[in-house]
């Protein structure tokens, strides 16, 4: 069904050969964190075995080689996002830290009290709480752009939020981790820019599934995390336009982010190092570089085609399960499918699926306000990766029918 050979893709993921409770692993929780291909594992182990030392300041061979390998990740991230300059890539721990960095540094350093930040009604907690903290500390206002019942951003209502001219920043997901909806990022940015506001896009989910071009989108900030993109945990990326990053004060102080230090004062290193205090996640950066190269080698066209087929297949198969309701019916959507069953709570669904070797997520998916908007306490969620097969979705759908029978 795919434009690439999913069997050979799967063969590159050692963990997919594992059995769970005596059954073949059916891993449908990639939106929480993706599994890792051999290329990533080998790059990380190889670095630790053959060329490891602290980076940037070492004057010896090992440090220089490690610095090169780590900094190659910056090039890879810049290439992945089509950033104009590698210095626009700031390494952080994860998307959450990237958003917090912007909230703290751009929020307090550039936004003025009384200005407003716009988020959407389908944000992950990581793109809600930092803006609440900014509001409480700095006197900014927090506005929420509503979504439609289908789970799409209500663009008319979004645009109306700019009417009073107070909006200074928009921070919106590029793809919902609950509904699978893509947001119309280009249009979001156009509207914001037309009203003088900057835009941060949370690409934690989107970057896994489709080609992101920050320059085509004209995004001011873009964040993603390595571990959802088949890379390791502990490394994420904040892209920011150079002029914005340069105007922003540092967030955390420490080594590596300074130009010079005296007891009276310090001066800051240039972007992006100004934002990278302390020894970074070196091995994880090397792993991220391998992950990006691996994804690029497969290509987003093939990835997107595979996942579009899977999603269509999943929507058809799961909709046919009696009593199952798919939550979120956006036109433009990806391989994240939330659902409820009339007879079973999401946790009970997840536990029974687990006994069948199927890993899904259940709960509020770190999006409590969205759950409330949908009138739900929780959903179960199946999410797909590059290694997911149509057969696995068939197993899920068949097992869900049996879960429902169990709770009759």
């Amino acid at each position, binding site marked *: 069904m795919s434009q690439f050979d999913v069997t050979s893709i799967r063969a590159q993921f050692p963990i997919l050969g594992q059995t769970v409770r005596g059954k073949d692993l059916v891993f449908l929780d990639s939106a929480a964190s993706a599994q890792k291909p051999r290329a990533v594992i080998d790059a990380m182990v190889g670095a630790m075995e053959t060329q490891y030392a602290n980076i940037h300041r070492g004057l010896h061979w090992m440090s220089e080689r490690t610095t090169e390998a780590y900094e190659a990740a910056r090039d890879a991230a810049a290439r992945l996002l089509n950033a104009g300059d590698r210095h626009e890539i700031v390494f952080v721990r994860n998307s959450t830290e990237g958003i917090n960095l912007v909230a703290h540094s751009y929020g307090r350093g550039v936004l003025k009290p009384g200005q407003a930040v716009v988020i959407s009604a389908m944000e992950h907690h990581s793109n809600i709480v930092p803006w609440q903290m900014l509001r409480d500390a700095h006197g900014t206002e927090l506005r929420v752009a509503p979504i439609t019942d289908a789970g799409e951003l209500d663009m008319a209502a979004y645009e109306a939020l700019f009417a009073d001219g107070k909006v200074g920043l928009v921070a919106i997901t590029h793809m919902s981790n609950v509904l699978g909806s893509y947001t119309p990022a280009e249009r979001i940015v156009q509207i914001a820019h037309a009203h003088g506001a900057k835009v941060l896009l949370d690409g934690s989910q989107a970057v896994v599934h489709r080609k992101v071009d920050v320059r085509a989108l004209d995004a001011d900030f873009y964040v993603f995390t390595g571990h959802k993109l088949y890379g390791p945990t502990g490394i994420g990326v904040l892209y920011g336009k150079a002029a914005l990053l340069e105007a922003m004060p540092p967030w955390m102080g420490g080594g590596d982010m300074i130009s010079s230090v005296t007891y009276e004062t310090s001066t800051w290193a240039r972007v992006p190092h100004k934002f990278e205090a302390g020894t970074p996640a070196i091995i994880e950066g090397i792993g991220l570089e391998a992950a990006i190269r691996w994804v690029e080698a497969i290509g987003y066209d093939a990835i997107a085609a595979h996942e579009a087929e899977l999603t269509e297949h999943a929507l058809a198969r799961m909709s046919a399960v009696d009593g199952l309701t798919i939550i979120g019916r956006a036109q433009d959507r990806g391989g994240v499918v939330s659902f409820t069953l009339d007879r079973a709570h999401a*946790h*009970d669904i997840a536990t029974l699926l687990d006994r069948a070797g199927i890993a899904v997520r259940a*709960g509020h998916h770190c999006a409590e306000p969205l759950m409330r908007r949908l009138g739900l*306490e929780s959903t179960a969620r199946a999410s797909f990766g590059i290694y997911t097969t149509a057969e696995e979705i068939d197993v899920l759908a068949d097992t869900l029918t049996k879960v429902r029978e*169990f709770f009759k």
Partner: protein
Amino acid sequence: MFEDVRDLYNATILERGRRPRHMRRLEAFDATAKGDNPMCGDRVQVWVKFAEDRSIAATGFDARGCEISKAAADLMVEAVAGKTADDTKAMFAAFRTLAQTGACEDCAEALAPMQPLAAVHEYPSRVKCATLPWHALIAALDGQGASTSE
């Protein structure tokens, strides 16, 4: 299929989870508290009415969550009927041990109503579903309005 989950999803749990006998708000109560598991979104509220000797005369609850949390709340109501606050706290300590390990020496009799949940220790991610109503009950007895099973 799913025969191997019958240890936890046994007849008692399925019945109590689907048709709890004590899921109601008490019209007259002396203490109440909410329980919240922020990791999964489960919520419970417990109301308690004391007898003259301060033992528990009646307990009611409202729960939004899974079968396990509702069944646990329903069985808890029966387990603590007539108990003092100290008894109830000791029972919770014992139940936690039972829920986490599957065994609890010297507590079989007092915890008999909770025994249908003994297998929850085989499901580590579900232990907090079973203990959430107890957290709320203890918070109510302690005069605290809220609790968490986090």
